[in-house]
């Protein structure tokens, strides 16, 4: 302690060392308890939070992309289904129309056939009637002609009278 030749900044000084120890312990304790760890911890937590947020954003993005893809897939599927259904419906409609037409044609043909056969029958009836009538008329006429030839005036007179009678 008696180093008189040395300047005081190079001399050991118990008092200064004591106060330095005390002050440093105080500041060290305060800093450890209330200072630096709180700051560094908070910054690290913030860093972690940012990392997590980024991770979450990435995941959300990926999920969104997945959802979009899924949506597109669903849409195209739906379109395909729609087209399929439409074509099916068209085919069904066509077949129905075709069937209906065929049926109508068949019905029409049947009706026509019936009408024809009826007409034919009517025609046959008519022909038969006409033929009968013609035969009767012919017979009648022939009768008359025959009567006329067979008799004179007197006979004619008689024939006419008889015929009149017959008409009457």
């Amino acid at each position, binding site marked *: *302690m*008696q180093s*008189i030749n040395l*300047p*005081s*900044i*190079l*001399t*050991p*000084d*118990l*008092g*200064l*060392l*004591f*106060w*330095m*120890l005390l*002050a*440093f312990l*105080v*500041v*060290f304790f*305060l*800093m*450890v308890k*209330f*200072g*630096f*760890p*709180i*700051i*560094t911890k*908070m*910054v690290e*937590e*913030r860093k*972690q*939070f940012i990392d997590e*947020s980024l991770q979450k954003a990435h995941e959300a993005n990926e999920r969104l992309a997945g959802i979009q893809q899924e949506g597109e897939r669903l849409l195209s599927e739906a379109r395909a289904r729609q087209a399929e259904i439409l074509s099916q419906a068209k085919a069904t409609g066509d077949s129905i129309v075709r069937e209906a037409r065929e049926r109508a044609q068949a019905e029409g043909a049947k009706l026509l056939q019936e009408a024809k056969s009826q007409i034919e029958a009517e025609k046959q009836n008519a022909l038969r009637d006409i033929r009968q009538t013609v035969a009767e008329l012919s017979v009648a006429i022939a009768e008359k002609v025959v009567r006329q030839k067979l008799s004179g005036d007197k006979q004619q007179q008689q024939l006419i009278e008889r015929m009149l009678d017959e008409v009457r």
Partner: protein
Amino acid sequence: MKLFSQLIRLRTAWLCAWLLCGFVALPASASSAGEGESGMPDVKEIVLGHMSDAYEWHITTWNGHHLSIPLPVIVQGADGKWHTFSSARFHHSADGTHEGFFLNEEANGKVYERLADGTEVRPLDLSVTKNVVQIWIVVAIMCAVFISCARWYRNRKPGDKAPGGFVGLVEMFVMSINDDLIRPSVGEKHYRRFAPYLLTVFFFIFITNLLGLLPIFPGGANITGNINITFFLAICTALMVNVFGNREYWKEIFWPPVPAWLKVPVPMMPVIELFGILTKPFALMVRLFANMMGGHAIILALTCVIFITCQINAVIGTSLTFVSAVLMIFMNCLELLVAFIQAYVFTMLSAVFIGLAHPEPHHASKEA
């Protein structure tokens, strides 16, 4: 960055004020303490006096009146009783003695006790000196800055907005030291345990260095340029290194992976390694002390150039005052840099030494 440039501007303002004070105090200074035989200022005395500890905080001398803040003197006398009194008491009595205590000019102006038989002894001296006050000012500043910043985080979640302004600056500063200096130096695995200590040391040295550059109260005491302080800080680091060093660290000291003849008959390597334990903190102590002391000494010597040359000749005095002022501005800027660099280097080396005390076991076998 803006704050930093403001700081520099503030420094320059301080410097100008200091220079002005110097000019005004010129006649007083010539007639006051640091005067040599030929009327020249005693540069060595002035420089050492400004860098030394003191029982009062001298601010300026005005027309021969000392303007200073008296500080409490706390000493234990030879009789075992504690004496507490203001350092102004020394000036009140005619012979500068109070309760048997006096300032011994032959022993760096420390308090000595004159015993009844006339012998002078150094009592146990726990006085609150200028350096002690300066240290407590640093402690107060650190508490104010970092605890207030830490309180800002209260009631805030990690997802909240990051701080801006002063808190943001402090956070950025702390995290840059934490992430760019401590983490790579100590190593990813262990740095969390030692980060608070290393951060405390860094900011203590940094703020002390900066305050040491202020010419007047509340700064200007030469703390880190005092061997006691750097000794204490080096001891702290040595304790951190050796108390928390792992088994592998001690194995590498007493049984290093070198050829056996280097350690069996004569334990050469263990002795060298043991010296390493001592030289590491010693280097820390001397580096910080010498750098800060040297910077202060140069600035003070440059200030003295003004007074010396003015005594010789007005022309030389004026021209050299200009040169000296320019050099002092340069030195102050350099010291601003050194204030940061020395705090950085001390912390970095402490961190590296702590990191070296936690070697991985497989790492050693690879070396061998």
